[in-house]
Every structure is written in C-alpha cells, then in structure tokens.
C-alpha cells in the first residue's frame, strides 16, 4: 500500500485542526453566555460533539462487523478495529466532560442521567470488544469473533437507553424544550464539524495501522490474502 492519499489525510487533519481552533474561540468567547446557566454551559461545545463522534464510531463499527460476516475482508476487519478505538477515545474524554458539566449544574459529578449512563455502558462494552481483540492471536478467528461481539454490543445501545430512561424517568419529568440563541446553534455546528474532520483523520490513520498489523501477522509482504473463512 503506497501512501498516495497521505496529503488528503493530512489535509483532513489540518482542516479539522483549523475548525477546532475556530470552534474553541466561538465556544469560549464568541457565543453569548446562556440566559440562566451563565458561562458554564460552554462545556457543551466540547462535550456533545465528542459524544456524537462516539456514536458515529459505534455505527461504523457495526456496519464493518456486518460487512465482515457477509463477506470476509481484512479491510472490513481493520475498519471495525479502527472505528472502535477512535470512538472509544472520544467517548472516554466526552464522558469526563459530561461529569465536569454535571458538577456546577446538578451539584454532583454523576447523576445517573440517562444519556451519560447509557454512554458509560456503551464504553464498557467497547472496552470489552478491544480487550477481546487483544486476547486472540489468530487473525481470522479474531475477525469473526470480534465481528459477532461488535454486532451484539451495538444492538444493545437502544435497549440500554430505554431501560435507563425508564429507570430514571419514573422520578423526574422530562423538561420541555425552549428556543435557543441562533449563535449557540452555529457554534455547536462548527464544533461538530471540526470534530468530524478530526475523527475522519484519526479513523483513516488508525485504519492504516490496522491494515499494516494484519499484513505483519499474516507475513505476506505484498499480496494481502483474503480470509479463507469467506464462505458465509
């Protein structure tokens, strides 16, 4: 695999970096302070996009896992590995930001909020996925088994979300949405796109690492053979 896409990948990263700087400035200084929450709400601009990236990572992982089971290919397996790890990275720091957000608003770091709780469960599930990958040496078995685990873990997300929401909502009412300042919306969008580009650059780089690892494991220097367990 010669690296003809290197410039595009670096460009994605650079675009992400520029947007991250702009987004940080917008989030920290440009967007108005919230009418009631003051400046604390600015955490949202880093927390929410990170959580979105985790969900996107989980979804890509699910698609790659299904694709692998339908038609075995190292590309699908590597994409699954990359998306799980990158999504996990965004999820872990996003969860920490969620706790930082909870302290000044709810008074505690952890309030068993349905969103945060579901995300915590999701992260533990994907940590299990990554651990499983590390514990199986045979690349083909690893690919099949982790694809099964990835599909099962992803199907769990909506069930976890409903269960935690019911578990909590029996105590508290859901609040009614209000109008938000349009500048806040724009700042959130800029930050979301910034993270999307960073996410893609990370995903791509991690995918190349995974492909290189497969090559080394199979000890096939140039021609990367397809998995033999292809008969679905």
């Amino acid at each position, binding site marked *: 695999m010669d690296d003809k896409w290197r410039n595009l990948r670096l460009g994605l990263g650079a675009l992400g970096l520029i947007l991250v700087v702009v987004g940080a400035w917008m989030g920290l200084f440009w967007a108005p302070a919230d009418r009631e929450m003051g400046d604390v709400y600015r955490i949202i601009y880093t927390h929410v996009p990170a959580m979105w990236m985790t969900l996107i990572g989980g979804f890509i992982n699910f698609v790659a896992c299904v694709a692998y*089971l339908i038609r075995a290919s190292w590309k699908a397996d590597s994409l699954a590995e990359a998306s799980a790890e990158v999504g996990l990275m965004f999820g872990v720091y996003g969860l920490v930001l969620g706790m930082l957000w909870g302290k000044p608003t709810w008074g505690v770091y952890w309030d068993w909020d349905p969103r945060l709780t579901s995300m915590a*469960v999701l992260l*533990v*599930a994907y*940590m*299990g*996925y990554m*651990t*499983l990958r590390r*514990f*199986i*040496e045979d690349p083909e*078995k690893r690919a*099949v*088994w982790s*694809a*099964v*685990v990835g*599909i*099962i*873990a992803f*199907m*769990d997300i909506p*069930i*976890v979300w*409903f*269960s*935690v929401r*019911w*578990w909590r909502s*029996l105590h508290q009412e859901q609040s009614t949405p209000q109008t938000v300042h349009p500048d806040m919306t724009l700042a959130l969008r800029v930050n979301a796109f910034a993270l999307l580009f960073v996410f893609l650059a990370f995903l791509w780089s991690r995918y190349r690492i995974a492909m290189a690892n497969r090559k080394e494991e199979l000890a096939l220097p140039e021609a990367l053979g397809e998995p033999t*367990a292809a008969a679905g």
Partner: protein
Amino acid sequence: MNAPGLLRTTWILLRKDLLLEWRTRARLNALIFFALATLLLFSFALGPDTTLLARHGGGYLWLALLFASVLSLGESFRVEQENLCLDGLRLSPTDPQAIFLSKALGNALLLVFLGLTLLPVMIAIYGIELKMGLAPLLGILTLGCTALSAPGVVYSAIANHARAKDVLLPLLLFPLVIPALLAAVKATTLVLQGDPMAQLGSWVGLLSAFNLIYWGLGLVLFPRVIED
C-alpha cells in the same frame, strides 16, 4: 435443515447436557453453594438491617444469579472442549443452531432451578414476602434467566477459546446484560413489594424484547462463532 429436525436435535443435545449435569452432581452442588454464599455476603455487606435487605432483595437475587451464570456458562463449553466434543458434534454433523438452542436452554433451566433454590433462603434471611404470589415471580425468573443465557452462550463460546477467558466472559457479558438485569430486578422488586403504579408491564415488555433480540441474534451468529 427443516424445523422438526432442528427441534429434535436440540432436544437430544439438551437431554445429553442435563444427563451430564445430573451424573456430576458435585458441580451443581458447588454452584448452589456459591450462589447461597453470595446471598449471605450481601447481607453482611449491608449489615443486619432487615427492612433494607427486604427492600433490595430482588437486586441481590439477580446479582447472585448473574455471578453464578458466569460460572455455569464457562463450564458449559469447557466440558465440550475437554475431549474435542464440540468438534465431534460439528462433524457429526449437528446443526450449530441446535447446539446454541440446547446450550442456552440448558443454562436457562439451570439458572431457574438455582433461583428457585435461592428463593426460600431469601424469604428466610431477608424477611421478604411475596405480595403478588409465586406465579408472576416464576414468569419473571424464567424471562430473566433466558435473557442472561442467550447472549451468555454466544460469549462463552467465544471467550472459551481466547486467552484469559475467565476475565473475558464477565467483561463482555456484564455490560451487555445491564438492561436485562435492570428490568429483571425492577420487575422482581415490584412483585415482591406490590405494584401500585402498574409499572410491571413495561419492565416485562423490556425483558421480553431483550429475549427476542438476543435469541434471534444468537441463532444467526452462533453458527459463525463455532465454524472452523
């Protein structure tokens, strides 16, 4: 692979597993004592506060069952691996879906049996009372145990071949079954303490949906797990 063939194979395999379980009763006994010890330890962790113990009895029952299920699930494929029995079964050739169904049903049966043994002990040491009678509790116990065992069998077949399998199975299984556990605990608590706000239905619905999804996924995915 027509349906009667699948069901018949499942029945034969299930009978084989249950017979094996019965002939080596020591393992079953060990499992029961493990679950009993877990129940006892919860009361020590909480102190001798009977009202508190009674209120959280449902949670302790399910945690004890969950811990026991990890042991029984790990065993159910270790047994098959000992003399390459699983390979023999696959070559015979047995429908892999029948292997999944028999293993999952066998584990669910074992867990229901375990739950029924724990129940009188809980009534005695936690001081709980059955506000809604035994029948709904039995239903929830069955639904909860099948919910634990369907994904459990898939994961245990995977973990059994990996390194550090004793760590891997709970690491994979515990986060997955959180919604099932939540629903089972809530439903059990409602049955034990009465259900003034009629919330039981939604939890039973959630538990049933979990069962439906993971028994379906297991049937589809398990053959891929044990293929060679």
